[in-house]
């Protein structure tokens, strides 16, 4: 049997008294698109931060192709092959698009600082390869015209794509996308959706994403995991999730009957007092 790309066992992350992620088991099979959904504050991004090494979970294990990665520093995790994007875009603002992608290739290069002063053959070769690959990536994401523009000055949609380009530059096996279509219009969202599909089908990558846009999620996901209050409340194919009673409750609150009951009770209380 093939090892899953990511397997979390019983991952728990708490801040003080708040348990943001509560005993979550998650399995991401190879070359799949898996989504994590859930209401705001459900612990989705915290789980992401645990996987990419920003946080070290209080409890549980995280395996990447069977290798334990819990507690590794983030650059080691990136070297192993996990890249990510951020909910609120975090590019290297003063660097150009090209430089951002070049930084992304850092873990795939090994030239030393002395070599860069001497400009020996190894350095020159590596640098020109990096440049070539960077242009390829920018082209792939439709950013080649913007290569020399500082990231800060890019239009919003381009910034989102540049983040993905930077993440792809390290040639990861797993790509973590935190709300890739947030703030995009319909056309941009459609483009992003097809891009994610291409990454899976043509680049043979595994993608784990957080997304709020249900149309996108139901459209592209192979597996959906639903979090609420840090706990996993459902998992399955899009069709299964859509009809799951607990998911509906998590999003829309408890049944309408109960709400009206509560409301009436309150009213009578008020009258009495």
């Amino acid at each position: 049997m093939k090892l899953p790309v990511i397997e979390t066992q019983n991952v728990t992350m708490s801040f003080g008294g708040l348990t943001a992620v509560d005993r979550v088991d998650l399995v991401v099979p190879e070359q799949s698109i898996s989504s994590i959904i859930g209401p705001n504050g459900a612990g989705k991004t915290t789980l992401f931060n645990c996987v990419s090494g920003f946080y070290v979970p209080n409890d549980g294990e995280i395996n990447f192709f069977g290798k334990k990665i819990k507690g590794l520093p983030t650059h080691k995790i990136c070297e192993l092959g996990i890249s990510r994007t951020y909910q609120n875009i975090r590019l290297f603002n003063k660097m150009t698009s090209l430089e951002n992608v070049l930084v992304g290739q850092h873990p795939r290069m090994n030239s030393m600082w002395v070599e860069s002063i001497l400009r020996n053959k190894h350095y020159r070769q590596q640098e020109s390869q990096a440049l070539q690959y960077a242009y390829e990536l920018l082209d792939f994401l439709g950013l080649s015209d913007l290569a020399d523009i500082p990231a800060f000055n890019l239009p919003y949609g381009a910034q989102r794509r540049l983040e993905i380009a930077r993440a792809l530059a390290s040639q990861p096996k797993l790509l973590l996308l935190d709300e890739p279509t947030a703030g995009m219009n319909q056309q941009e969202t459609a483009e992003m959706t097809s891009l994610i599909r291409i990454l899976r089908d043509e680049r043979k990558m595994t993608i784990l994403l957080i997304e709020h846009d249900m149309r996108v999620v139901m459209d592209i996901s192979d597996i959906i995991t639903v979090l609420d209050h840090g706990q996993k409340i459902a998992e399955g194919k899009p069709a299964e999730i859509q009809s799951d009673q607990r998911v509906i409750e998590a999003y829309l609150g408890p049944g309408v009957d109960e709400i009206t009951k509560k409301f009436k009770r309150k009213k009578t209380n008020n009258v009495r007092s």
Partner: protein
Amino acid sequence: MITSIKDGLRTGLTTAIIFTFLILIGFTSVAANIIGDVLGNPEALNDESQLPVENLLILIGLAGFITGLVTIRKGSSPPWIDVLLRGLTGGILAGLIVGIVIYIVGSFHMEGVDFRAYLPNLGTAQLGYLLFYSTPLAASTTYLLYFTVFSLVGALVRKTLTMLTGLSTQLKNLKSRVSNWSDTKVFKSFASNQLFQAGLIILVGVGLYFLPLVWGSYWNYIMGTVAIYILLGLGLNIIVGFSGQLVLGYVAFFATGAYTFALLTAPEPHAVGLNLWVAVGLSTLVSILTGLLLGLPILRLRGDYLAIVTLGFGEIVRILIRSDLLTPLTNGPKGVTNVGQPIWRGHIFTDINYMHLLMLLVLAGLFIAKRLKDSRTGRAWIAIREDQTVAQATGVDTYKYKILALLLGAAFAGLSGALFASRNQFTGPEDFTLMVSVNVLCIVIIGGMGSLPGIVLGAFVLKGLPELLRELADYRLLAFGALLVVMMIVRPEGLWPGQNNKKGKMAAFTNSLGEDNLEERA
């Protein structure tokens, strides 16, 4: 109406506060002297105890004039009556406050109160000058009059200028054309011509070789200092400008370099008598080791904490050098004299040799810094500066690269420290105060963070100019502060910003985007 009066009063108050402050620290007479120099007025009157009053009057007039200019807001063109009102209220308030201060101080002075106990620069001669050698009442009336009249003139001039809008837009066009000269085709085709480049390099090289021979030892001394500070700036720029770690104790590495060299080559206190070039290498090495010692524990800190810890480190090194504990090793507060000087073709290094060596090192330093900046290493540093967390998640071992930056910076400081000690033939603990760190940091920031030409420019402005304007030496700190504040407002990206933070390019790009969008819609 009311806003005009308010604006006028506000400006007047600001001028009054600044001017009063300048009077109290005794800056006004220095400034007046400079005005006198510029205009070629005689230094003193026939009676030698009295300075020419006109210079002071011109200074006051100038202050009033600027007040008037500032009362009219940028880009606005109020009606004439408002202009009058603004100029008058600003001038009157400024003149009134300054006048009252002069009157009070003057009255006490007449009664024989000595202000020097509280304000060391406000001696009898000073005060007499400020009172125009007449009574307090007459003097304060003069201040009021001058401020009012010239503020009015300033406001009217500003109004007239804004009325000539055609002129100002033309000026703007000219300005943008001048500032974009490096983008023009003619320049680019010239600059990319290899023959042209080679010619330029040879020309500059020959010029640099002959300059120290021609301009004499005084200039060699000043330019040597500038060169040492360029080297320091290049080193600190790797730490602060590239990798973005605010290290405030940079002087520590400078000091270790200088002392290592001095102790290894001077006859006192140890008489090691090491070969000088080996000593230069060793002092660089010791500085690097110091960097390692400091960097390993503290580079896990970020931002403010790092700044404070390194600030302490710089002072600790200086205090250790002069402490009783280390006096047997370092000669303590006396410092080390007769530091070794290199020998070149049978004679001891002259100022010209030092200058040539320093120029060579500066060029090498620029070369190294430039190549580092454009490499994988440099990109990793800049990524750390921009967002350390994300840089690490992008695969950069931030701790390792921060230490590397610190070590390379320390190496630059160690090398320039050795040269500094050798050139001065002396090194003492008071050469390595906090001010050195502050100076170098100012060079990096004012030149433009991470920009190499900016550092050269910054070193000339901050170390070269003060040497030439010796008269202002007492007010150097004041000028630094003012310069930093003005820079942060007017040119936050530095005098010569690095390529990526040029304002003009950004604006040009956003403009072009806007046009594209319009075309698409049309």
